């Protein structure tokens, strides 16, 4: 950890002005003689530069972990103080979609890790392929998220103020272990009973109308725990923040792909590929926890 690369320029020997002297030391062979274009002037050797970048990105990941920790904290407190809200609300979350997204992210992690290997081994085509695959997975993930979000928002299940469920699931029984059972969407019930307002059937009603019917029906079923709204705040907060990170990852990978196509990376210079992969793996790590925490409540 505290070992420092030796400036072969040596003690008290004058450096050529402009400061690429030490750089020359680090990079025989690779680029031929002297000046190494991939080495920033203030580093002595590519190894030093790479290690610095690596420690830098790891430190950045540390800040990311603590950034997310706030939401994990809110989650665990609400989960332990208001389990009922979670028991009720998880019925809205689609485990299948969640699981699919998990697999997508895991695969993208594989390709990301592979892209590093390719860069290290000068496999330029492999690198491009891996980066491209990673990107595609990222888009896929967002696509699935979009489907999930739009379904909820369509039923008025937003966060904060926009939590106005006009097509909520209603439950008939509560098991001793606190599980809500016999869930049915208002839309279904309305369809079965052919409910309507002023002759307009539920399906064709505007939002206020649907809300009216929903509130109407609520009285017959189990009451909704008051902090459900907070659950969805937390759900959107966590998945949303994670989504923002995915978007960030996409930007980074587009940039990498461009440079890879230009053949900028090679066994002597692949830092950015490695760092981006590390970041992407962290995004994956976070999701590895979010999935059971949000989608697998039972």
């Amino acid at each position: 950890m505290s070992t420092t690369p030796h400036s072969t320029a040596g003690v008290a020997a004058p450096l050529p002005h402009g400061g690429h002297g030490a750089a020359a030391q680090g990079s025989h062979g690779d680029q031929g003689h002297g000046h190494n274009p991939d080495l920033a002037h203030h580093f002595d050797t590519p190894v030093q530069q790479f290690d610095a970048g690596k420690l830098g990105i790891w430190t950045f990941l540390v800040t990311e972990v603590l950034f997310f920790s706030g939401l994990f904290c809110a989650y665990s407190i609400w989960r332990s103080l208001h389990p009922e809200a979670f028991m009720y609300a998880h019925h809205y979350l689609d485990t299948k979609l969640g699981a699919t997204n998990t697999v997508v992210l895991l695969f993208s992690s594989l390709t990301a890790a592979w892209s590093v290997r390719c860069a290290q081994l000068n496999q330029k085509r492999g690198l491009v392929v891996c980066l491209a695959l990673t990107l595609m997975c990222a888009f896929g993930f967002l696509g699935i998220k979009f489907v999930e979000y739009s379904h909820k928002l369509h039923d008025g299940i937003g966060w904060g103020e926009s939590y106005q469920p006009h097509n909520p699931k209603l439950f008939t029984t509560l098991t001793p272990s606190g599980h809500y059972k016999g869930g049915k969407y208002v839309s279904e019930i309305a369809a079965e009973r052919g409910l309507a307002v002023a002759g307009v059937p539920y399906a064709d009603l505007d939002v206020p109308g649907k809300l009216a019917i929903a509130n109407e029906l609520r009285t017959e079923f189990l009451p909704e725990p008051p902090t459900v709204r907070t659950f969805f705040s937390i759900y959107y907060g966590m998945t949303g923040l994670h989504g923002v990170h995915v978007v960030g990852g996409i930007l980074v990978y587009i940039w990498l792909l461009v440079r890879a196509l230009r053949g900028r990376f090679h066994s002597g210079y692949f830092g950015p590929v490695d760092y981006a992969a590390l970041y992407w793996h962290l995004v994956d790590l976070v999701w590895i926890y979010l999935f059971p925490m949000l989608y697998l409540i039972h």
Partner: protein
Amino acid sequence: MSNTHLHAGDAAHGHNAIAHVASIKVLVGVFVLLLILTGVTVGAVFVDLGALNIWIAMGIATVKALLVAMFFMHLAYDRPFNGIVFIASLVFAGLFVSVLLLDAREYKPNVDSYRALSPLVPSSSN
């Protein structure tokens, strides 16, 4: 690592002068393991073990996290310090979450006694 010579030649046979190269076997192997574990978590949900479920799920998640960190993120071969740095983040995040959880549970009664008298209006009915 001290000053190393980089020969593009090194790259040819699965080896790089600057950093360790993960073998395809390891990468794919880890990926498969991750898939299996994901399957297990989803499966575990359908056996109701009450409070135990969440801990099982978290346990499996942690194993998966470890796999990713050790192999995909190279921690297994990396400078130990990078690992230490990462662990530090988890330790402090843990401190943060656990202390707040402890306090929240401690003062819960004051909140509940108040809620008993003036309950929250269920959010959706507004």
